[in-house]
Every structure is written in structure tokens, then in C-alpha cells.
């Protein structure tokens, strides 16, 4: 599903060079639920951005879903993101001026899908996160947990092969967070590969596999035998 080999990512500013990832290699199988942990600044978000084709890397090879995406152009990368990847962000990143329906619609618009089919999918996605009845509300009229559910609906609506989440529960209290986690487990159980960055060690144990990053390299890669219900 996802194969990163010997990836290097260097941020160059006028003053410093930061090696965010060094000779980073990781393989993720289809259907896995992988959590990524590590101290602040170790390169978790950088890894996620590279995995999600949000950024380019300095050297190495990245094969996604059987396709070498290391040297794709900007336009093709956007298309791959749109069709294969769903994103969930720590601060939800909903469009404040659009209602829930239009928010979930955003990725579908870029796919050039017919209005009738979009509507069907959007309502199904909103229904699956329990917010269909509020499709005409604005994000600001929802709680944080509800907003993150909308963001999850938006990530799922295009039926991506895998889901990338950067601390999806980081801005939520623990009750709300466990609700979101349950939702992610359901999604994973339905077949979507999930890679999730988290600071919370207890969440890390709820996945199939936990990868710990230190200084831009994989420090440990453990399979969890205890799975959450």
C-alpha cells in the first residue's frame, strides 16, 4: 500500500538546514491502522505531509498503491490526493463560510462528479458521522467533536484508499476523543488504511501497529496485540 524507502527531507532556510527526516523507511500494508508517535519536532507531521503528497522530499523513493509518486508534478499530485487520500487535521480545517453539506462537497467538486451523485454521497457520509440532520448548519454552530466528525465525513466522502490524520483528537476532550477514535476504528474495520499521528500514548496502543519516530528516523515499530474493541 505505502512504501517509503530511504526518504530524506531537508528544510532549508537562510539560517539553518533542518533534517526533518533522514533515511526514513516505512512500509504500510493495506487495511492497517498505524499510529505514529514521537517527541515534538521529531518529524511526525513531516512524514504525514510526505505520505499525503502535501510536500515534496529531498531524496528517496515513495510508492503509493503500486505507483511511484516520488516525482509526480503538482497537478498529478493534487489528483492523487483527491482520489486516494483522505485527510483529517488537528484543527479540523473546515471552511467557516460553507455549511456542512458544502464542506463535505469540497473534495467531490474537484473530482468533477455529477451533482446528483455528489448529493447522494455527501448525505451518506454525513449520515455515517451522525450529522445529516445538521447539513445546513455552519461549522461555527457545532462543537469541536462534531466539527471533527464533519471533517471525517469530508475525508471519507471520496472513498479514499487511506486516511491520514494528524492528531485528530488533539483539540478534543477525552470523551469526545474516544468517540472520534471509535469512528476511526469503524472506518478501518470497513477496509480503509489509516495512519494517525498522536501524542497520546493510550491511543497509540489502540492501533495494530505503533511507529515511534526519533530525530527523523523510525526508532521502534511495534505490533500491538491488544486491540481495542
Amino acid at each position, binding site marked *: 500500500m505505502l512504501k517509503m524507502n530511504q526518504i530524506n527531507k531537508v528544510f532549508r532556510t537562510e539560517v539553518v538546514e533542518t533534517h526533518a527526516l533522514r533515511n526514513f523507511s516505512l512500509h504500510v500494508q493495506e487495511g492497517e491502522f498505524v499510529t505514529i508517535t514521537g517527541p515534538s519536532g521529531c518529524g511526525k507531521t513531516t512524514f504525514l*505531509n510526505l505520505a499525503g503528497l502535501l510536500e515534496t522530499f529531498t531524496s528517496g523513493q515513495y510508492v503509493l498503491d503500486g505507483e511511484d509518486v516520488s516525482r509526480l508534478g503538482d497537478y498529478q499530485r*493534487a489528483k492523487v490526493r483527491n482520489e486516494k487520500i483522505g485527510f483529517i487535521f488537528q484543527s479540523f480545517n473546515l471552511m467557516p463560510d*460553507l455549511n456542512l453539506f*458544502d464542506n463535505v462537497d469540497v473534495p467531490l*467538486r474537484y473530482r468533477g462528479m455529477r451533482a446528483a451523485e455528489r448529493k447522494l454521497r455527501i448525505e451518506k457520509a454525513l449520515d455515517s458521522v451522525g450529522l445529516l440532520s445538521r447539513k445546513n448548519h455552519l461549522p461555527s454552530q457545532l462543537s469541536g467533536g462534531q466539527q471533527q466528525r464533519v471533517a471525517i465525513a469530508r475525508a471519507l466522502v471520496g472513498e479514499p484508499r487511506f486516511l491520514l490524520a494528524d492528531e485528530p483528537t488533539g483539540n478534543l476532550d477525552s470523551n469526545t476523543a474516544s468517540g472520534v477514535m471509535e469512528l476511526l476504528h469503524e472506518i478501518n474495520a470497513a477496509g480503509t488504511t489509516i495512519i494517525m499521528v498522536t501524542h497520546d500514548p493510550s491511543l497509540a496502543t489502540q492501533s495494530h501497529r505503533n511507529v515511534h519516530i526519533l530525530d527523523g528516523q523510525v526508532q521502534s515499530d511495534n505490533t500491538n496485540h491488544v486491540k481495542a474493541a
Partner: protein
Amino acid sequence: MEIGPIYRALMRNRLGVILIAAQIAFTLTVIVNAVYIINDRGELMARPSGTDEANLFFINNIGYGDTYNEAVVSAEDLDMIRQLPGVTAATIINAIPVSGSGSSTGMATVAGRIEGVVPTAVYTVDEQALSTLGVELVAGRDFTATDVRYRNDSIARGDNEIIITVAMAEALFPGEGMQAVGRTIYDVNQNASVIIGLVARLQAPWPQSSFVENSMLIPEVYIDNSAIYLVRTEPGQRDRLMVEVEERLAASGHSRILRNNRSLEERRAESYRIDSAMSTILVAVIGTLMFITAMGIVGLAVFSINRRRKQIGTRRALGATRPDILRYFLLENLLISTVGVVAGAVLAIAFNLFLVQNFDMSRIDWYYAPAGMVVLLILGQLAVIGPAISATRISPALATRSI
């Protein structure tokens, strides 16, 4: 097309939209009417005077002293001028077309009749008038030397043989102006004048006058020590001859003052100075307004793009390509501008109707408002393209990086 969500998002930020749309509407109102006025003035200024303007100049000659005899001096002067190489013809004339000053009278087809009097400019000239002015005789005959009467205050104005413009003949004899030759018309003192010729066109001295196309030529030289010599030259000889004629007149030894040695082109430009100044000001107003409007659009676009950097990054992360982002902002601008130009077209027509009712203005042609709408829509798209391109450069990584 994503007009729906763009429109709904705009509706949540109405103030900026309304301000820019109002500015576009106002700009459209002003430019449509200003362009119309400029074109209107332009047409006015472009009307031909009927004369060979490019090759004409004139000079005022004022004699003084007991021994000065204008009849003798002017005959001598015209003789000298007509013999200069490069001079086509010369005449002595009381006023210059489109110069702003001259004399006028009213003519009627029935002696003593007040109503139906046709106002007209009066040019008193000698027999070389038509060839000097370069006007085109379309019926009847030209003046001859024997037609010309030399007159002063002691000799009353009598009956005349005159040449008038076709426009004036039409005003006197509606529908049969071209058959006016041979007919008699009367001035306010009931002096009779027989029309012996018609010229195609000769404008009065006053370009703003309502009877600017009505002119009457009388073969008469009035002796009062003040004369205007009008000189027509071969093409390209005018400026040289202006100098030469003035020098020779000055050197002739008569006691006189020479003034106003001017070309007709120069005089015409002066007569239309206010019109051309107004056009220049209006062009400046149009340019300024369009610039300010464009800047307003750029400002709003830059502001809203900066405010939405993270949203744009998120859209990119969710699969928007750079062309998608560009299209978003072009469409957004198109929506705002469309509201502005539709309102502006209505306002422009309303404002024009106001001008029609309150000032001496005509209705704008139908295509002015649509043309203005297209121009402002294009201006809007051009103004927004820079900020929109900068928006396409926002990295999708912004979705995860900044809060």
C-alpha cells in the same frame, strides 16, 4: 462549475462584496456617460467647417493717421499677396469661420415678416472669397469683380446679390433648398437680396451656435480702416507665407498695426478649447476611476486571500489543482463584478436620462451600457488575476502546518 458554494460563501461576507460592487456600479455609471459625452464632443469638433482649413491663415490690418486710405491700401496689399509664389488666393473678409467672432442677421422669404426669420452668419467678402475659403459652389455662380461694392457709413446698404449655404437655403425653403438660386430674400430692414449661388458648406464663426451651418456671403467691402486678409496657400506653404506676408505688409510703409497673424487650424483649436479640455478631464476621470476600482478589487482579493490562506491550503490538500484555485478567485470576482455591472448599467441609464432632462444632452446609444459592462468585467478579471495567481502558490502543506 462551483458557482453555488462560491456564491454562498460570498453571502457570508457581504460588506466587502457590496462595497466593491457599489464601486463598480458607480464607475460604470460615470464612464458610460463620460465616454458618451466625449464622443458627442468629438463629433461636434470633427464637423468640417467647409473651408480648406489646413492651408488658410489670416491677418488683421488696422490703419491709422489722416493719410491712411483703406480702399487704396487694401487693393495694394491684396495685389501684393496674390502675386506671392505659393499663394492660391486671397480675400478681404469681415470675420473668420469658427473663430468665435463675427456678425449675424436674420433673413426671411417675405419682406417685413418676423416669424420664420432664419438666423445666419454674415461674411462680407470680395470676388476671390470662394476660391480663398475653398468652399464648394454647388449651384448658381461665383462672384465677379463687378459684383463687389465698396462702401462706408455714408453709403447705405442696398440690395445685394448673395451666395448662401445649402443648409440655410433649406431652412428658408424647406424641401426646395437646392432650387433657391434666383429667389429673393429680405433682411430685417427689408433690403432685398437675390440668391445667385449656393455653397455646400460654410460654418458660421460660432461653433456652439444653433445655426452654425447657416452662412451668407455678401460681395461687399466695408471701408473703415480695419480689415482682415484671408490667404489660401498651396499645401505646405502656409507657415512660410504667414511670415512673409506679415513682413511685406510691415515693410510697405503705410501707417498700420498688424495683429493676429494666425492659421485657421490654430484658431479652430482655440474655439474648441473648452470642449477638448472637458474631454481631457473626462478621460482623466475615467482613467482614475478605473484605476481606483481595479485597486479596490486587488485590495479585496489580496485581503480575502490572506484571510483564507489556510482554507486555500486545505483545498489544495483535498485535491484542488492550481488551475482550480485560480478559477475559484476568477469566478468569485466575476460574481461580484456581475452584481456591480448590472446595477451600474441601470444607474448609468438613469443618470443619462437625468442629464437628458436637465441638460442639453441626448440619449446614449443602446450599446454604451453593455460595452461598459464588458469593459468593467474584463477590468475586474485582470485586476484579480495577480492575487489569484499568488493564491495558487499557497502550499497544500499549510493545511497541517499553520494553526
